[in-house]
Each structure stands twice: as C-alpha cells, then as structure tokens.
C-alpha cells in the first residue's frame, strides 16, 4: 500500500438522511449517493433521543479531524428538531473541544428533490479548507 485515496472531506449526516423512511424517500435527495460522488465520507448521527456518550464520542472524532486538516461539514434537515443533528448538544461539545463549528447545509423536504440534490451537490463541491491549511496537512 503506497498510495492513499482519502478525500479529506466528510459530512455529519442525520439518521433521517442515512435511513429515510420509505414514505419520505421520494421527497429527499439521495444524500449518500451525493456524498460518494463528491468524494466525502460521513459521520452518522443517531436518531432523536438521549445519546450523551455517543455524541461525546462523535465530537471527539470531529475534533481530531478538524485539528488535523480535514474539512467537516454538517447536513441537516429543515424542520426536524435540532435539524436532525442534535445541534445544540453537539455544538456545545465541539466548542468545549476548541473546534470551529462546521458549516451547515439544510435540506428542505418541501422543495423538489432534484433542486435539493443540486443545492447539496453545489454546497459539497464548493466546501473545503483554505488552500494554506490544505498545504499544511495534506502531504
């Protein structure tokens, strides 16, 4: 193994976009497909509920990435509690770890899936760390 294909970019993804219920699928873009096309990995956030330890574990991982040259974004769902991202809890955990909050893109289920697909693709394609940060870490 002499090469490495990592894309250095990833997105926080709510459970409702990882595993959309059958009835909602037609109304939502295929987020995993769009992430794959754009070379992103993902970090899966749990469904609504109390997940204090798991969110802390996820925040630890985000901090490790954010402090070493990786670009982390968040994809939420407009109208879901905390955008499906446990945002209030997660942002407190990230601030505590000295992490600049990831940019957030919200998907709207009341807009045509094709439009939302393009909006998300544009957001992902356009996001990365500044070039000087990339040069510092990505050797």
């Amino acid at each position, binding site marked *: 193994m002499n090469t490495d294909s*990592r894309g250095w970019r990833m997105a926080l993804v709510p459970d409702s976009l990882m595993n959309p219920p059958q009835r909602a699928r037609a109304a939502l873009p295929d987020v995993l497909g769009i992430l794959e096309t754009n070379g992103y*990995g993902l970090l899966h956030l*749990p469904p609504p509920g109390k997940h204090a330890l798991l969110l802390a574990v996820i925040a630890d991982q985000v901090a490790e990435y954010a402090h070493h040259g990786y670009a982390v974004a968040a994809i939420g769902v407009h109208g879901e509690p905390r955008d499906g991202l446990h945002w209030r809890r997660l942002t407190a955990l990230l601030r505590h770890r000295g992490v600049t909050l990831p940019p957030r893109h919200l998907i709207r289920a009341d807009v045509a899936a094709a439009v939302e697909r393009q909006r998300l693709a544009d957001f992902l394609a356009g996001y990365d760390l500044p070039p000087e940060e990339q040069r510092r870490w990505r050797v």
Partner: protein
Amino acid sequence: MEKNARRKVALVANCLLNQNAKVCQGANYPGLVNPVVEALRNRGYQLLQLPCPELAFAGVRRWWAVYEQYDTPAYRAHCRRLAQAIAPLIEQHLRRGDEVILIGLDGSPSTGVRFTSSKPDWGGRPNRPEDDWEIVPRRGIWIEELEAELARRGLPPVPATGWALDMGRYDEAGSRRDLEQFLDGRESAAGRRRGKSAAK
C-alpha cells in the same frame, strides 16, 4: 405499518463509510466504500455506523499497528467505552426483533471479524519492512469488546463478516462477491425458515 415492521440493520465499520478514518496509506476510496453501501442498501438494510476506536485513541496520524500492540488494558477500556456508547442503539434493534448484522474490516487489528493482523514482535521505532505482518483468523480488539458488551446485556450474537480491505492486497471484486454471498446466504436461509414455518 412501516414503524412496526421488522427491519434489517447493518452495523458498519466506521471507515467503510468514511475512509478518512484509515491509518495513513490505508485509504482506498475518497470517502464511502460504495460497493459495501450499494450491496447493503440494495438488499434493504438500514446502516448504523460504528465509532472508529483507533482514530479516537491514537489519532488520525497514528502509526500502523498490529493486534498485539493494541491489546492493552487502556485500549480495551477505550473500546468498552465506545461499545457502551453505541450498544443502546443496537440493543433497541435487537429487542424489537430486527435482523441485525455486522460488517467489519478483515485484517484490521481493531475491526477485523474473520481475520486480524498479527506480529508479536512489532514495536519500537517504526521501520518495519513492507508486509511482514501476518493475517490470522481472529476478531480485532474492538469487535471483541463490542461483542462482549452486547453479551453483557444478554443480547444474542450478531451474524458478522468482514470487508477484506486490510488483508495486504486489496481485491474489490473478490470482496464484493464475498459480501454478497454472506448477505444472499442469509436471505436464502431466512426464506427456508419462512417456508418451513408456513408448511407446519
């Protein structure tokens, strides 16, 4: 109706959905390992991503390591903490009767299911020649601790296999065939069980 239907849930190794978690020089894809995602989604599985134990313990710039180097009380305690973080979600699925499977990462010292990497004399200055570790049939440390946590909760063993990404030489087509055989074998067995109970 969908709410109460029995679901199919795949517990997926963290790096199969995020190759950025891999040790340096270990990423074979930019992000998602798409053949795994496709094989599971095409068969109706929901995905549940497991935490990456190595990333959270030794960081993104960690050295390569084998099973014996991670087999320490501190690393096992760390893995148990991660297992306690994710186990409530797995338990919820198992208690409601969902079909739960685990897709690990064969060859990994942590997430190996059928195979892990071994070299008892690795240690010290990291100047090993290439490919001098061995692949042995054994769980990785993280999978051992996750399974132990599920057992502590009185839950049944979860059928598991590994995507052979860390076996030295990577064969995507072979790995895909292997995973599909595992998944389709489960489908056939489930079909036979349904047939038998209908005949009774």
